[in-house]
């Protein structure tokens, strides 16, 4: 292998490189963070579009807009795009921007690999979109009508679009694992002198745990879909009982990934909250140590409770009981985190800027979703609820507040830092209220629909479910449109606005607020000393 030796002038850049190269070839954590966030925003609208189609179809009983397979493909895509395309990249974008600035590091530990983990995402998105488009071509096979869980045997029978999807999942997995390695190494190796692990900002802690979870569970998903691929094309019978395999095996592999994945989505937002709530309550975070402890507990127990998604498959009584108890136990550390947030607000001198409004909405609504989760965790009850709209209501109540609102809070909280401009507070509040009200109108009625027996993932429904579905669809229009306001606010803030100070919020604490707003292209080239 031949080698080239860099001339020393070449080896360091101090200003941002110009033009398209700056973005395509970037090795700068801030630029890569921006790329992640823009990608996530794009995917939010793509996933949102499929959701709107779903809700419009469900506006009335009967089959109006799309055919059943296409409907189910929309459901599949909506979930995959939102989880892998919007929430995870947005959280990774926040991590990229904030972690080096928070821990006093000059950049991520492995800057070139950082760029690779971002750029794999557009490739994965391309494959995902192709999987949706291919069936429209002659010979393109059937649509992916399995839902995001991709259970065989249905997923073995789907046409070639499933192969595009499987490879998209491989790409997403590679991207997440590389990003996680980078984040773990950055957090363990790049902290400024004096910043002990137990002094690390909470957002960094949540990402440390998240990245750890990702490294452990994403490869298992990759293994699972690889077996699926081989079952589809190369005659293996992992998931075929005729050959001694078992379709349920796939479910175990999927949910071994899938349940920790919900904490992967949740934890970065918990991290954001741990900054937003103290800042706007003007008090330090209540119970730092117990936060770290409960997070580790959630992650550990979360690894071994996956089969609560499979109560109805006919597991043994012992197994079902174990998974039920484990699942219910997790609500204890989760509840502890919530109590910490409430205690932080207790007797604080609170103000209610947009990030704080989102934070309070999370505390209320996430708790609500957690409670419906405990209902679902109870085996005999779940026999009724499973695969009904109640589950849909549950996971939207945990995922929208628990993940997306947290990301919104983070974006509003840090926008002044990133852009150097304050966002328009009045518009921010309007966005908050339309978003939260729209959300609740959309998903609250789905609890009733589920309890009354409306199954999920079915295009048509009994006429007796019409009213609640109409309400839900109207809510979805409000909810969906409100995001256009988000887009407008973000663009407006990037282009101008009141000048942000380096400490943009009165109560904000941490190294990142000692840097200019917007920060220089390279920050902390000399590490600060943390006391």
């Amino acid at each position: 292998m031949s080698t080239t030796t860099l001339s020393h002038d070449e080896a360091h850049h101090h200003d941002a490189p110009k033009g398209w190269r700056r973005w395509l070839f970037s090795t700068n954590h801030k630029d890569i963070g921006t790329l992640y966030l823009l990608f996530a925003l794009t995917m939010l609208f793509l996933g949102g579009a499929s959701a709107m189609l779903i809700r419009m179809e469900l506006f009335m009983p009967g089959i109006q807009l799309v055919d059943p397979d296409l409907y189910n493909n929309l459901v599949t895509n909506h979930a995959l795009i939102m989880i892998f395309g919007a929430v995870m990249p947005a959280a990774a974008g926040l991590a990229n921007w904030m972690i080096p600035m928070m821990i006093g590091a000059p950049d991520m530990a492995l800057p070139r690999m950082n760029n690779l983990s971002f750029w794999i995402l557009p490739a994965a998105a391309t494959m995902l979109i192709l999987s949706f488009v291919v069936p429209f071509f002659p010979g393109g096979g059937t649509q992916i009508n399995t839902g995001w869980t991709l259970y065989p045997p249905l997923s073995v029978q789907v046409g070639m679009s499933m192969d595009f999807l499987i490879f998209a999942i491989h790409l997403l997995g590679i991207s997440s694992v590389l990003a996680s390695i980078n984040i773990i190494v950055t957090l363990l190796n790049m902290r400024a002198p004096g910043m002990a692990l137990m002094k690390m900002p909470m957002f960094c802690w949540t990402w440390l745990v998240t990245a750890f979870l990702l490294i452990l569970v994403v490869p298992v998903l990759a293994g699972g879909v690889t077996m699926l691929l081989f079952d589809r094309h190369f005659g293996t019978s992992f998931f075929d009982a005729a050959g001694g395999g078992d379709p349920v095996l796939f479910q175990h592999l999927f949910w071994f990934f899938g349940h920790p994945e919900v904490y992967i989505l949740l934890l970065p937002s918990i991290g954001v909250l741990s900054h937003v709530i103290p800042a706007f309550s003007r008090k330090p975070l209540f119970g730092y140590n117990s936060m770290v402890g409960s997070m580790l507990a959630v992650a550990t127990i979360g690894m071994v409770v996956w089969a609560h998604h499979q109560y109805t498959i006919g597991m043994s009584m012992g197994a079902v009981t174990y998974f039920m108890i484990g699942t219910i136990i997790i609500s204890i550390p989760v509840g502890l985190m919530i109590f910490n947030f409430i205690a932080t607000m207790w007797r604080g001198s609170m103000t209610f800027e947009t990030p704080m409004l989102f934070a309070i909405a999370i505390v209320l609504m996430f708790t609500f979703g957690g409670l419906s989760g405990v209902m679902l965790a109870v085996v005999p009850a779940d026999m009724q609820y499973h695969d009904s709209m109640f589950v849909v209501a549950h996971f939207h109540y945990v995922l929208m507040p628990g993940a997306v609102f947290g990301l919104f809070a983070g974006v509003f909280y840090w926008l002044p830092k990133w852009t150097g401009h304050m966002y328009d507070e009045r518009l921010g509040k309007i966005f908050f209220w339309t978003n939260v009200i729209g959300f609740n109108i959309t998903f609250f009625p789905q609890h009733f629909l589920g309890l009354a027996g409306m199954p999920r993932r079915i295009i048509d429904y009994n006429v007796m479910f019409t009213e609640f579905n109409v309400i839900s669809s109207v809510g979805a229009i409000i909810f969906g449109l409100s995001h256009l306001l988000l887009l407008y606010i973000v663009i407006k803030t990037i282009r101008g606005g009141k000048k942000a100070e380096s400490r943009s919020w009165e109560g904000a604490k941490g190294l990142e607020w000692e840097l200019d707003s917007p920060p220089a292209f390279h920050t902390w080239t000399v590490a600060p000393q943390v006391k």
Partner: protein
Amino acid sequence: MSAEAHSGDYYIPNPSPWPIIGMVSLLVTLMGAALAMNGVGFGTYLVIGGLLLFAYLLYGWFRDVIGENLSDCYNKQVDTSFRMGMFWFIASEVFFFLSFFGALYYIRVIALPWLGGEGYLGPTNEFLYGGAFVPDWPSAGPAELGGGFTPMGPWGIPAINTLLLLSSGATITWAHWGLKVDNQKQLVWGLVATIILGLLFVGFQAYEYIHAYSALNLTLGTGAYGSTFYMLTGFHGFHVTMGAIMLMAILGRAMKSHFSAHNHFAFEAVAWYWHFVDVVWLGLFVFVYWL
């Protein structure tokens, strides 16, 4: 800015085209694979093109890294980042293999007994297979997919392969000892021996596959046994091949005297990888061939 003035700093590389090239090569390869698997002819060309681009990417990216290393861009902290990065990469690989070991466990301990009518599932076997299915491992399932077959015993080639890999673990450690005392010769010969042992392993493995297909009627389609057998040994064999290629790259660098007693992260990374592959093999030998 001179390297000396910067020697205390963390090295941030220049903007680099390699990640984008990596993205394109992965996209082209996988898109091609998806097409080829479904009988779309030009897919194969995409796969080949994508893989070539990927090889070029690896070459170019590592050439940059080596260049930076030789011009003393990396300080101790960067070295630690690389080490931790490699560690966590291997951790993710461990979990990839765990999914296949998990599948093997699940099929043997849970799925087959169920099919055989264990516990309250007794009627399954009775009604579907007339009570005739005996869930003994190795099994190709109630339908005996793939027809009658002979399972692969542990004491022929697999045992030899175990010896080969274990001794390759020893030779690479010997090479490492040489490196630590700057004994260039010991390093190079240790690596050469490791590569030869690794390639012998791959050769035997290939022979074993041919034998299994032609003489034992043991194929990918041989039910659960064939599936788990080939996937586990196949992914392992693929990793050994990768490891051997990495060893060759390291050998080339060793012959150019790139390594010194205190600067040889690349060597150690490959050595860790090799030991990881070794340990996976022990798991395979016990759970796939032996038990």
